[in-house]
Structure formats: structure tokens, C-alpha cells
């Protein structure tokens, strides 16, 4: 069973195409890392999942339901932590707890208290009196204490210190490990995504560039160094390779694929593979972001 099913969703803001024919399925129990440049459409996609935006075309289903038609049924099963500070500053943390408990039948007060202790949150403190990191922790507490079936984190760690980021990552792992929940985790911090995600999706200019298992993704991108028999004054041509760097006879390129055909292709181009290694997620991200047409 899929937690979310997005089919052919497009969304436009005036002349700007924010999302373009996005298709995405997220099976239950999966941790999906959502990456993309600033303004690529990550938050817009998340808002469509939450039902806060209505697609111009296509359908969004969360738990098999339309989040716009049934907001109460969908939102009551989602724990959400926004990028920006969305909590009302005048509320105290204990008020936030009681207030949230009214909405969510699955609210676990013991767990909420435990999280407050772990996060070192003063339950009598007003949210506006907390630091940015503490507010993020409070929001995380409110999102986790409902024991959500679907945890949705929209760049929760941007601008936060490593300790808070560690708490958030721990929450993601805990949510999956303990509850079998589904997580969608949007972040610029790709090392974090690498640590916790099963799958990675990338959005660029509103289009879904890829959505693959993390391991498969990393094993589909190689950085290779080739030595050519002849001097090359311009970028060489090799099937599956792009982003050439170098000069003369030694060139480095990104190679898309598992590398099985690399030796044969190199031989055909009268080159020898000097070095090869798998790309990190960050390098894959940069490669896909740097050139619109490549790969």
C-alpha cells in the first residue's frame, strides 16, 4: 500500500511553472529524501501532499484519500514539521501539547513528555521565547507525539546547529524503526539524507528528475578518469559520459550507468580507464543541478 500517490501533477503560479507532470509513489514504511535547489518546487510538492495547494492538473492521494476533500482524515495521520517557524509564539509548550492532543486521538502524552525531557524543553516556556533550535525541537515534539503514520519534514534542519539536526535525524530513524511509519524528508543537507533515506527524489525546475533507491542511485553514477591515446583539444565523446574536465590526453567525466559497459566503450574511444569511483549523493546532486541538459 502506498502512503502517497501523486499522478501527473502540475501547478502554475502565474507565468511560473512550479510543478510539471510530477509522478511519485511512496510505499508505506519508506523514508524518502527529497532534494532540489532553492525554488525547485520541493515545498510546493509538499503543500500539495498536505492539501494546502490544489493542483492545476493531476491527482494527489494520501492514504488513498484526497487531502483537499478530506483534510481532517488526512491531516490527523500526518506529523508535519515546516521549514519556517509555523507555531504560534504566544503558546506555551504545555499548551501546545494539550491543544494538539485535542485533535489527534493517537497523541501519546508520555512520549511527548519524554521528548520534552530529551530535547531539554521547558514546558512552561512560551514558544516565542525559545531559540530557533528549541522551537524546531518543540515542533518536532508536536509532530512526533501524535505517532504519525506519515512524518513530513520540510527542510527542518536548515539553519540549525548539529545537535538539533541530530535530534531530527534520530526522530526520523525512530519513527521508521519503531512505528513502521513513512517519512518524507526534504533537506539541502545531503549527508543527512544519505544517512536515513531509503529512496531519494530530486526536483529541478518543477520536474521530477529521478526517484530511486539510494543505493541504486549511487551505483548508477560513476566518476571516471580516462587516458586517451590521442591528444584531445576539446571534450571527448563517450556514450554515457558527460561533464568532461581535463585537457590533452587525460580527462575526467561523470558516467551514468553501473559501469558494465565502460571498458568496452572506452576501448572503442581509444581510451583506458585510469580510475573510477561511485559518486556521493552530493556529487550526483551537483551534477544534475549544474547542467540542465546533461545526464
Amino acid at each position, binding site marked *: 500500500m502506498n502512503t502517497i500517490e501523486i499522478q501527473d501533477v502540475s501547478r502554475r503560479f502565474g507565468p511560473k511553472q512550479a510543478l510539471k507532470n510530477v509522478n511519485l509513489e511512496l510505499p508505506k514504511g519508506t523514508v524518502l529524501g527529497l532534494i532540489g535547489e532553492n525554488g525547485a518546487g520541493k515545498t*510546493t510538492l509538499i503543500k500539495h501532499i498536505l492539501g*494546502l495547494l490544489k493542483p492545476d492538473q493531476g491527482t494527489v492521494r494520501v492514504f488513498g484519500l484526497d487531502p483537499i476533500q478530506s*483534510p481532517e482524515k488526512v491531516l490527523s495521520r500526518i506529523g508535519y514539521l515546516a521549514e*519556517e517557524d509555523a507555531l504560534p509564539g*504566544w503558546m506555551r509548550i504545555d499548551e501546545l501539547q494539550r*491543544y494538539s492532543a*485535542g485533535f489527534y486521538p493517537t497523541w501519546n502524552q508520555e512520549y511527548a513528555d519524554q521528548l520534552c525531557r530529551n530535547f531539554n524543553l521547558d514546558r512552561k516556556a512560551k514558544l516565542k521565547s525559545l531559540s530557533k533550535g528549541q522551537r524546531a525541537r518543540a515542533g518536532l515534539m508536536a509532530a512526533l507525539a501524535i505517532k504519525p503514520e506519515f512524518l513530513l519534514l520540510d527542510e527542518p534542519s536548515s539553519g540549525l546547529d548539529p545537535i538539533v539536526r541530530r535530534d531530527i535525524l534520530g526522530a526520523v530513524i525512530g519513527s521508521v524503526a519503531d512505528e513502521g511509519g513513512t517519512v518524507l524528508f526534504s533537506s539541502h543537507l545531503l549527508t543527512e539524507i544519505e544517512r536515513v533515506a531509503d529512496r531519494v527524489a530530486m526536483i529541478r525546475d518543477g520536474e521530477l528528475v529521478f526517484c530511486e533507491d539510494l543505493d541504486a542511485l549511487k551505483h548508477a553514477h560513476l566518476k571516471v578518469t580516462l587516458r586517451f591515446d590521442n591528444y584531445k583539444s576539446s571534450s571527448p565523446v563517450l556514450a554515457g559520459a558527460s561533464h568532461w574536465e581535463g585537457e590533452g590526453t587525460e580527462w575526467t567525466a561523470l558516467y551514468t550507468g553501473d559501469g558494465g559497459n565502460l571498458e568496452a566503450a572506452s576501448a572503442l574511444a581509444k581510451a583506458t580507464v585510469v580510475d573510477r569511483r561511485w559518486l556521493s549523493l552530493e556529487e550526483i546532486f551537483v551534477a544534475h543541478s549544474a547542467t540542465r541538459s546533461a545526464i
Partner: protein
Amino acid sequence: MTRSISGLAWYLWRVTRLEIGMCVLGLVVSLLFHTAPNATFNGYLVTLEVLGGVTFGLGMFALVSKLSLAERADLAAAGCGYPRQLMLLPAPTSQLVFLPMVYGLTVISLLWIAFAAILGQTPEAIWVPALGFSALLATIQAITWSTTSRPFVKIAVAIFWVVILAASAPTLLLEGISPAGLGVFFIGSTVLAAGVAFAGLAKGRSGSYSELAWPTWRRRNLDHAASFTSGKAAQDWLENRRNGSFHLIAGAMMSVSYAFPALTYSQALPFGWPLLVSPLACYLYPLVLSAWLGTFVGCSGSERDVLNQDRSVATFFAMRPLSDAALVASKLRMALRSATIGWLIMLPGPILFLCSQVSIDGTECSIAVALWRHMTLQFFTGLVLSVLILFFLTWRMNVSAMWLRLSRHLMLHGAIGIIAPISVVTFGIALIQHYSYRPDLVPELLVWITPVLGLLVMAKILATYFVVGRLRKFGLVPEATIQRWGTVCLVTGAVLLPLARIASPEWITTFQAAAGVFLILPTVRIPMAVLTLHANRHRGTMPLAVEVGVVNA
């Protein structure tokens, strides 16, 4: 030194030039129609002149708001509300305080003097209010820029200090103080305010102040957070918690605004809306109302997506796992509850007023008895309209939306931005009324209050149109939406205008159209609230619904 002065002066001119332009436009319109021969316009002269006056007044609203330099100031905070970008300028504190003050006092005074001179006021009515405006503006600036040791202190000081200052003028005049004495009083107040502002900014720049923490006994009292059995109950709590205490204060102050003039005004009172029988009540009421508005405007939760030029309901509100109808119902329950509490608190005021003794044709009786004896259809209709207006004003969401959209600048200026302009304008109205107070004109004033409010609403609608016009450039507003809005206004007006015509045959020519327009908003918005919330909570590719501030305030 010279460069910093010229830089700061340029900044002040740059941020206020639009508002000054609006005031000048109002002046020009007033001048044109005030000096033109009556026959030229066949009776429309007064209306157009008033229109000029309204334009001038609205310009003053925005101007004083800007001059308070409170764009990002939180009046509830203890710290100095002086703009941070100016506070960090390499200029002496005295320059940062006195230059904006002098600039503001000069501009406001000159504009008023020009306006009053056009209307041919007496010399006292020209320069005394000018000094009064200066004192009020300086007071507002001083409160904004000062520092206190506790949060919320400045709100209380703003309300009471400004009220005292504004009330002092007619009170002192009634007590027989000469205009010259009143002028000295205003100058003294201005000097005092300047000193307070200087001390506040000096402390603010040096950081030599501290906010006190709540005492421990109060923290112990916080141990009992409410618990809720359902989401609806929790949402009701949130709505009530956010505004409840404010409505109590507002209601109590409204009560004072009714009771005080009723208790102190001993002369015979003409019939009409009680608020208009006394200059004191005349400006106390909107002053209190403005304070009431000011404490929550700026907290309304519309979120702007700068990247996509889009706006939506606040995320926290939108994420509540409740249906759109349930969220709106919670807001309506809150509005009804708070309005009821406000009215209940206010109740002693009218009772005291009605029990006050008046002399009608040599016969002494209570106002209630006199009203009963002299009840006319005109008065009854006025009463009904007044109740409707009062309900409209009490219902905070509509009021906030009206003011929020009336001026985009006001929206940015927070609490003091609302308090300041309304105080100044109502203060001016009160003074004018004092100098030219004629009881026989009160029924006419009653007639005018509705078209003036109607004009404000029309201005709001025009402002909305311009907002829509701006959004059109981004392709967010389809033609059909504008047509739909226009149709709603036309249909509602077509229904309401005949009703107003039947209800008030004597006033047809004067204010029925404005009354009809005025009634459109509350009437249409109540049933539209769910649709509006739905549109803004689940934003499709459609125009920004202007009611976003209403449903989400």
C-alpha cells in the same frame, strides 16, 4: 553631521511622500469645491468637499502611521521600537530622535493649518489643533521608542496617555481654559514626549535595559493547561485565548466612553446616536476602537509565499485536522462570544446614559423617558442602523479586514500604526466639533456618520481592486473572478438598497447608497466564510481571496 541629517531627512521624505501626496490631493479637492460657487454643482458641492476631506483624513491616517516609525515595532514588547536600520546609523541619538520628530510635527501641523485655513476656521481652531496634533504625534513616537521593564506596559501607557492627552483639550476648554493655555499645555506635552523619546532611544541604543521575568508565583499558576476532549474544543480554546482578554478590555473601555459623557454632560442633549451627543464621546469611541484593533492587527495570519507571489492561510491554522466548516464555525463562535461579552460589559454605559437627566422644552426627565416620548421613525431607523454598525465594528474580523486592506502601509505598521492615525484624526474631529458645536446639527451628523463609514468601506473595496490589479500582472486573477466579485457587489447592493430605502425614507438622498454598500460586507461574508477559507486553505490557481485576513485573523 550634515550628511547624516540630509540622509535621514531624505529617508523620512521617501517613506512619507505618498501619504503627503494624498493629503495634498485632499487639500486641493477641498479647496476647489469649497471656493466654487454653489450653483455650479447643484448641491453636490458639499459631498465633493467632504470627499476631499475624507481623502485628506485617510492621508493623515497613513502619514501619522508612517511618522511613528513603528513599521516593525511590537508595542507589547519592552524594548525600544525605533527602527533598527535607523538605530544603527552613525548619527548621534539626539539627531535620530529630534529630526523625525521635528519633521513629523512640521508636516502634520502645516497640513492641518492649510486644511483648516481652507475651511475658514478661526485662528484658534487653526493653531491649537496643530499644536495638539504635534503633541499627539510626539506622544505616540515617545511611547513607541521608549523602553520599559515589562512587556505590555507600553500598550497600557499608549491607551491611557493618548486618551488623557486627547480628552484634555475639550475638557479644559469646557472648564474655561483659554486656547492660549491649551497651546502651552500641548507644547509642554510635546517637550515631555521628546525627552521620553530621547531617553528611550538612548537606552535602546546602548542596550541598558532589561526585561523582567515573570515572578515564580506566576509560573506556578501556569501549571494547569487546559485539556480538550475534541479538536473543536481545542480550536475554540485557541480562538478564545488569542482574543478573549482583549475583548474584555475593549468592552470595558467602550463602557467608559458611553458612561463618562453621560455622567458629566449636564446640558440638554439632542436626540441621535449617543456617541454623537458629546465631543468627548465622539473621539473616545473611535480611540478605544482603534486601541482595540491595534492589539491584534499584525497577528492575523496570512502567509506570503514570496517566491511564487502567492499567499495562503497560516500553515499552523491550515494544518488543523478539521474541516473548513469546523474551522469557520469555531471563528464564528468566538466572534459571537466575544461580541456578547463586550456588549455585556458595555451595558452599564448606555444604562447610565439613559438614566441621565435632560431638559426638553423646560421639562426635566431621564433620557430614556425623553427618547420614548420623542421616538420617531427616523430615530428608530437610526437606532437599528447604529446597532448594525456597532455589531459590525464589534465583530473584529470584519473590522480588521477593513482596516487591513484600507491601507497596505497601515497593515505593516502594527499596533501603534493603527492607534496613531485614528487618534489624531478623531482628536481633530473632536476639536472641530467643539469649536463649531451646534446641537441642532447633531441629527445631520447622525446622517453623515454612515456615509463616512460607507466611504471607508468603498475605499477598502477600491484598495482591494488595486491589490487585485497588481496580482493580475502575475496572471493570478482570471477575468471571471473580477466579474464574480462585481456581480456579488451589485446583487447584494440591489437587495440591500431597497431595504435601506424603505427603512429610512427621510435620508434617501444623503446616505442610502453608502449604507447599502456598508452593509454588503458583513452580510456577504458570513455565508461566504467557508468558501473563502476553502479557497485559501487549499489554494488553487485563482486570485488571492481578500478575505484571507478575515477568516484567518
